[in-house]
């Protein structure tokens, strides 16, 4: 409908659309706030989970179920569990590479995964998953999706958070907030049940483990402490079984399948399926055909046997729980509720151990696979200006500091500090006339810098020549609400503003991210076309609806010939609306707008006359 119709006062702009994304090790989800209720977005078959798998075939990358189907037959070009590599260096992950069929390029910096003749970083691969989720949301909502809240394990360090944010940027998303997964889960529970008290969230996902202790009171979700292991999850439970199967195959057939990508995938998927099945069944039969060697591995497995295998892995989650309790100054008896999050918490042994530790039956009313995405949608709604009665106060999981002379660490911000937070500390030089100071920012709980996570190195240049010990270099840390660190440094005594150049140790520089965004645009022409089409269809819909309304209201104002012309234009638009031709839809929309111009003016005049008449009536009544 022509713009003039706006005389009827435009409605307030709809609340900004921000989706919540759970970017998981095994599966990912996207959710949004449908009115007052967070809702997970499902595909046409009703599936909420998008497998976090990217496969590269002749037709370009595919993501999700389609990629998962290629894990076996296209093993070397199908990448999964990407999250385990986010923000990591080659040395961090080389020990577990034997479990993965894909290859990494050895390097000192960020991990690079080789696929054919291309090399891709974990943020680029994660970006492909994010794009898939974004497309799913756009199809469902019929609106472009540009903003998102993405969740990460609470125990993710700064590099891993930054890598996740980079993935969002490469996917063309404005990442408004990085939220910790257990905290998001607590928000989802909080919205549903309005519970208060001290809550422990035990989150065992596909590849990561978190424990967070929160105090919920008057709408404030205050995280008291968090702990965990970013390399511990369902994947590790499966590996115990994979190792058993491999050992038994070796024993029975004398064959070592470690180096055979396809067979390894078959075994891994079989182990995963068996482990999941044994959560509800007491026994199962593993049947794994190995056609390459002409045999089939068959074995009965009971839940008890599985539990013996996974017991040491489950036990590894308990020490972080105890540390989190100690850091929060809470005893198990002081915990009012325990919430379970993550698919791996369906494992009966996990539930038993959690129940033993905290002395109470854990909650799992909300689907443990979906609760994090729901919470992300809640936080997204807070940021979009919707919900205003909830406030999340999260913490930084690991201490942050600077390496000082001799390799010791000076902690500026201790772990479990509420974010945002800031700290400043003064340092000086150790050599006469030292003009450059090397700063090394580290994260972790160890005394020596070399034992902690290296986050970034930077040089403070332009310190005026002074005797050792005289300069006063002030280093300022600021952690934002995402838990991401910003560092600034200056020499105070001389007043010189020295320059700072930060080089992330295991991350991407801004320039690299920019380049990846550009590259992704080249690959993503398809995406852009889809968005343009969505927008054109929506505009067409709006104009058609306004036209129908105007034809009823203005029936008496125009002659039948004009009404017919408008109807013809509307019919023309309607016939194109469901097609794929965005330009055609837009042209037809413009044509309809043109045909309704006259009617819109007439309606406007009559509305004005109506208003004036009402005023006169009012003024007469007042007299």
């Amino acid at each position, binding site marked *: 409908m022509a713009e003039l119709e706006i005389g009827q006062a435009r409605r307030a702009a709809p609340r*900004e659309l921000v989706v919540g994304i759970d970017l998981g090790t095994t599966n990912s989800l996207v959710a949004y706030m449908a009115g007052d209720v967070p809702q997970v977005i499902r595909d046409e078959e009703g599936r909420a989970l998008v497998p976090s798998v990217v496969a590269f075939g002749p037709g370009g990358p595919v993501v999700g179920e389609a990629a998962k189907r290629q894990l076996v037959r296209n093993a070397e070009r199908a990448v999964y569990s990407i999250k385990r590599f986010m923000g990591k260096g080659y040395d961090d992950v080389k020990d577990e590479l034997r479990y993965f069929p894909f290859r990494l390029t050895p390097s000192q910096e960020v991990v690079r995964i080789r696929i054919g003749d291309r090399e891709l970083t974990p943020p680029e691969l994660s970006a492909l998953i994010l794009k898939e989720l974004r497309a799913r949301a756009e199809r469902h909502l019929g609106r472009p999706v540009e903003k998102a809240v993405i969740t990460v394990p609470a125990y993710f360090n700064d590099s891993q958070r930054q890598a996740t944010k980079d993935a969002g940027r490469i996917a063309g998303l404005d990442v*408004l*907030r990085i939220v910790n997964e257990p905290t998001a889960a607590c928000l989802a529970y909080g919205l549903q049940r309005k519970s208060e008290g001290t809550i422990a969230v035990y989150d065992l996902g596909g590849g990561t483990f978190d424990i967070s202790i929160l105090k919920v*009171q*008057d709408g*404030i979700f*205050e995280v008291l402490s968090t702990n965990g292991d970013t390399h511990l999850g369902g994947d590790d439970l499966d590996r115990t079984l994979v190792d058993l199967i491999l050992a038994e195959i070796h024993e029975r057939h004398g064959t070592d399948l470690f180096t055979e990508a396809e067979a390894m995938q078959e075994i891994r998927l079989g182990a995963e399926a068996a482990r999941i099945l044994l959560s509800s069944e007491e026994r199962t039969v593993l049947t794994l055909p190995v056609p390459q060697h002409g045999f089939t591995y068959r074995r009965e497995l009971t839940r008890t046997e599985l539990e013996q295998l996974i017991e040491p892995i489950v036990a590894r989650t308990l020490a972080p729980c105890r540390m989190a309790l100690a850091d929060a100054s809470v005893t198990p008896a002081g915990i009012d509720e325990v919430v379970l999050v993550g698919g791996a918490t369906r494992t009966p042994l996990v539930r038993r151990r959690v129940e033993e530790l905290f002395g109470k039956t854990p909650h799992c009313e909300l689907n443990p696979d979906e609760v994090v995405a729901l919470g992300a949608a809640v936080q997204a709604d*807070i*940021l979009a*200006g919707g919900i*205003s009665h909830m*406030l*999340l*106060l999260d913490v930084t999981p690991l201490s942050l500091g*600077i*390496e*000082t*002379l001799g390799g010791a660490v*000076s902690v500026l911000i201790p772990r479990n*500090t*509420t*974010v*945002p*937070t*800031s*700290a*400043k*500390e*003064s*340092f*000086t*030089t*150790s*050599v*006469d*006339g*030292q*003009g*450059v*100071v*090397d*700063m*090394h920012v580290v994260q972790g709980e160890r005394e020596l810098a070399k034992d902690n996570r290296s986050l970034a190195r930077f*040089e403070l240049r332009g310190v005026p020549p002074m005797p050792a*010990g005289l300069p*006063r*270099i*002030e*280093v*300022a840390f*600021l*952690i*934002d*609400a995402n838990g991401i660190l910003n560092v*600034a440094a200056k020499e105070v005594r001389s007043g010189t503003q020295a320059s700072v150049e930060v080089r992330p140790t295991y991350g991407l520089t801004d320039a690299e991210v920019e380049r990846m965004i550009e590259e992704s645009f080249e690959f993503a022409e398809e995406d852009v076309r889809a968005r343009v089409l969505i927008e054109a269809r929506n505009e067409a819909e709006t104009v058609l609806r306004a036209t129908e309304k105007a034809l009823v209201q203005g029936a008496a104002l125009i002659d039948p010939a004009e009404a017919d012309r408008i109807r013809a234009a509307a019919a023309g638009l309607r016939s194109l609306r469901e097609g794929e031709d965005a330009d055609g839809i837009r042209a037809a929309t413009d044509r309809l707008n043109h045909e309704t111009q006259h009617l819109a003016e007439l309606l406007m005049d009559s509305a004005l006359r109506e208003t004036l008449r009402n005023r006169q009536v009012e003024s007469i009544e007042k007299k």
Partner: protein
Amino acid sequence: MTEATGPPTRPGGVLGHGVLTRGASGTVDARNRETVKCWACGAEAPGGDLCGTCGRLQPLPPGGDHWTVLGLPRRLGLDRVDLEARFHELNWRFHPDYFRLRSPEEQAISLENSAGVNTAYRVLRDPVARVEYLLESEGMALGSAGQARPPADLFEEIMELQEARQGFEVADPDEAIALRARLEAARAELETRHAGTEADLTALFARWDAAGDGERRALLETMRDALATRAYLRTILRDLSATLEAGGRTE
């Protein structure tokens, strides 16, 4: 490159431990003014968090200490419940979540204010950190480990303990068992003592709050000594635990 380079060092006793302060970079403009004006519209005395004239978020008053940030008098005796209530209240007012749709300047102020509140709360809620902060702001900071000293009444005992610790590292199995028992007993005792230093400190809070300027200085010195003891005990305990975890040579 001809310039000397190297990692930074902690300044010695003179500069001491850097004072943890609220990040003030967003408040530089306001600091140089005699009267507080709204940074956005220039109105005199904007009053409150939001300017009474233009409604924009204002930075926290510049140069305020952690007590000021939380709206408290400068006292050592603080009520935990009250402190937490202020922490929550101020986060409702300043948290970046609720300023995302405002201007970039207000978002930056919201981040700085919120960081200031959280830092103030972190320091003040912990009685030991509270005393350390007070000493720092009074120019009486406890320096790095060098100033930590053994409590006089434990001096002999600690010297013996250090010998036992060294002995344990090279002891044969029989000796090691006896020495381990002795070291573990010592650790338990020192842990009790370490925990006791916090009570020693808090016992002085009410006195410092009520004291005049002259007496306050002496009380601060007493507190500094208690902190020095505490730091010393922590170092000893850490070394002791490391020794016990590593085990004797032949154990």
